[in-house]
C-alpha cells in the first residue's frame, strides 16, 4: 500500500531573528483537502511559520515540504512555479493601493495566463461575484471596508485556482457578521474545489467554522495538536487561558 503524501509538511523548523528565537522545532503536517488552523497568542511565530510555507522566509534549520517539493531548497523558477499553486491571503489584504479591484486581480492574472482581455475580465467578474462583491470592480481598496478588502484579497488569492490557500489572520479586525462571511467563503473553497488550507487565527469563531485540525503555538513551539475540541479540553494551562 502506498503512503499518502501530505500536501504540506514542516519538519523541526527553527527560525531566529538575531538573538530572538521565533520558532523552535515546529513540525506540522497537513493532508490534501483538509484545513489546519494554527492558533496561539500574538508573537508566537504563527505568521513566520506561514511565510516559510511559501518561501518568503528561509529556515535556520529544518525542512519545509509543499506538494512533495522542498521549498527551502528550490531555485527561483521552481519556487515561482510552486507559488502559482498557492494562494496567500495577507492579514491586511495587501491589495495594491494604486489599482482598482479589477486591476488588482488582472495584474496577477494577465502575467500568468494567456487568456484574452475579455476572457480575463469575465474571470475577474466571476471571482468578485463569488465573494459577493459584484459591483466593486471599479473601486479602489481605500474605498472598501475591512471585510470587503479581505473578500477581494481572497478573490485575488484564488484567481489562479491554486491547490493550497494560506491565510494570515483572515478575520482579524472584522465584525462577527464579516467573520462568518469570510470563514464561510474559505469553507466553500474546500467544499467546491478541495483546496488545502492553512489558516492562522486567534479567532475562535473562524476556527470553529473552518478547521479540521488545529495546532497551538506557544513561544515558538507546537504545544498541542488535534481537533479544536481536543485543544479546547486540553489540560495545559496555556490552552486553558487561550480558550477561556
Amino acid at each position: 500500500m502506498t503512503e499518502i503524501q501530505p500536501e504540506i509538511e514542516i519538519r523541526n523548523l527553527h527560525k531566529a531573528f538575531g538573538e530572538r528565537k521565533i520558532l523552535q522545532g515546529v513540525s506540522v503536517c497537513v493532508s490534501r483537502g483538509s484545513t489546519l488552523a494554527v492558533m496561539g497568542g500574538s508573537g508566537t511565530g504563527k505568521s513566520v511559520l506561514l511565510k516559510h510555507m511559501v518561501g518568503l522566509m528561509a529556515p535556520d534549520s529544518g525542512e519545509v515540504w509543499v506538494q512533495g517539493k522542498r521549498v527551502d531548497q528550490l531555485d527561483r523558477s521552481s519556487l515561482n512555479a510552486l507559488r502559482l499553486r498557492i494562494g496567500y491571503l495577507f492579514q491586511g489584504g495587501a491589495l495594491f493601493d494604486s489599482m482598482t479591484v479589477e486591476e488588482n486581480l488582472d495584474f496577477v492574472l494577465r502575467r500568468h495566463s494567456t487568456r484574452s482581455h475579455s476572457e480575463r475580465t469575465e474571470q475577474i467578474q466571476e471571482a468578485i461575484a463569488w465573494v459577493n462583491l459584484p459591483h466593486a470592480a471599479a473601486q479602489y481598496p481605500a474605498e472598501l471596508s475591512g471585510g470587503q478588502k479581505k473578500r477581494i484579497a481572497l478573490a485575488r488569492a484564488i484567481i489562479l485556482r491554486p491547490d493550497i490557500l494560506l491565510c494570515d489572520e483572515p478575520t482579524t479586525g472584522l465584525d462577527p457578521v464579516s467573520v462568518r462571511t469570510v470563514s464561510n467563503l474559505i469553507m466553500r473553497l474546500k467544499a467546491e474545489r478541495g483546496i488545502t488550507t492553512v489558516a492562522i487565527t486567534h479567532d475562535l469563531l473562524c476556527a470553529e467554522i473552518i478547521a479540521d485540525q488545529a495546532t497551538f503555538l506557544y513561544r515558538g513551539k507546537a504545544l498541542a495538536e488535534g481537533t479544536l475540541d481536543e485543544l479546547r479540553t486540553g489540560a495545559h494551562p496555556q490552552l486553558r487561558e487561550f480558550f477561556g
Partner: protein
Amino acid sequence: MRVWTKILDEVGAIAAFSGMFFQQLFQRPFEGRELIRQMDETGSKSLFLVLVTGCSIGIVLSMQSRGTLARFGAEAVLPSMLALSVVKEIGPVITSLVLAGRLGAGIAAELGSMRVTEQIDALEVSALQPFKYLVVTRVLACVVMFPLLTIACDMVALFGGYAESLLSSHLDYRLFIDQAFSSLRLSDVLFSTGKTGVFGFLVAIIGCYSGYHVRGGTREVGQAAMRAVVIGSLLVLLADVMMVRLSLILFGS
C-alpha cells in the same frame, strides 16, 4: 569603529542593490507599461516645480550679477555668464536637488508603505518580480527624466534671465540669445545635461533602497523617506564634484 562597520555594511548593501538593478535591467519581462507610468509620474508631475525653480534661478541670477558686472564695466557679458552658469552647473545641480527632495522621498515612502502593508510580499508570492516591477522601472524613469527636466529648467532659467534683463535694460532678445549661446560649447551642454542621468540614478536607487528595506511601521517609513532625501542629496553633490573634475579632464575649462 562600530559606526564605520555599519556605514561600510550599508555601502555594501547599496552596491549589491545597485548590482541587482543592472542584473535585472535586461531581463524579461521589461515592464514597459509600468515604466511609462513611472516616467509620467516622475516627469509631468515634477515639471511645474522644476519650471518655477528654473525661472526664479534665472531672474535672481540676472538681478544679482548685473550690479557686480556693472562695477567692472562688464555688463555686456551677462547673457554669456548666465548661460554658462545655468547650463553647466546651476541648472543640473539645482534640478537634481529639487528632484531628490520630491522623488527620493516619494519613492522611499511609497515602497516603504508597500513593504509594511505586505504589498511587496504579495507581489513575491504571486510569482511576480517585485524588484523588477518596482525598482528597475523607477530607477530607469529617473535616469531618463532627470536630463529632460534639466533641459526644461535651463531653458526657463534663461528665459527668466532674459525677462529680467528686458525689464532692467531693455536688452534685445536677439542680442541676448546670440551672446548666451555663443559662449556655450556642445560638449558643455551634452555633458552637463547627461550627468543628471547619473544623479537620477543615485536619487532613485537610494530612494528605492531605503523604501524596499523598511522594517516596522509608519515611523520607519518616515525615517526612510528622510534618509533617502539626505543621502540622495549628498550623493548628488559628491557626484557633481567628481563629474566636474572629469569634464575638466575630458574637455578642458
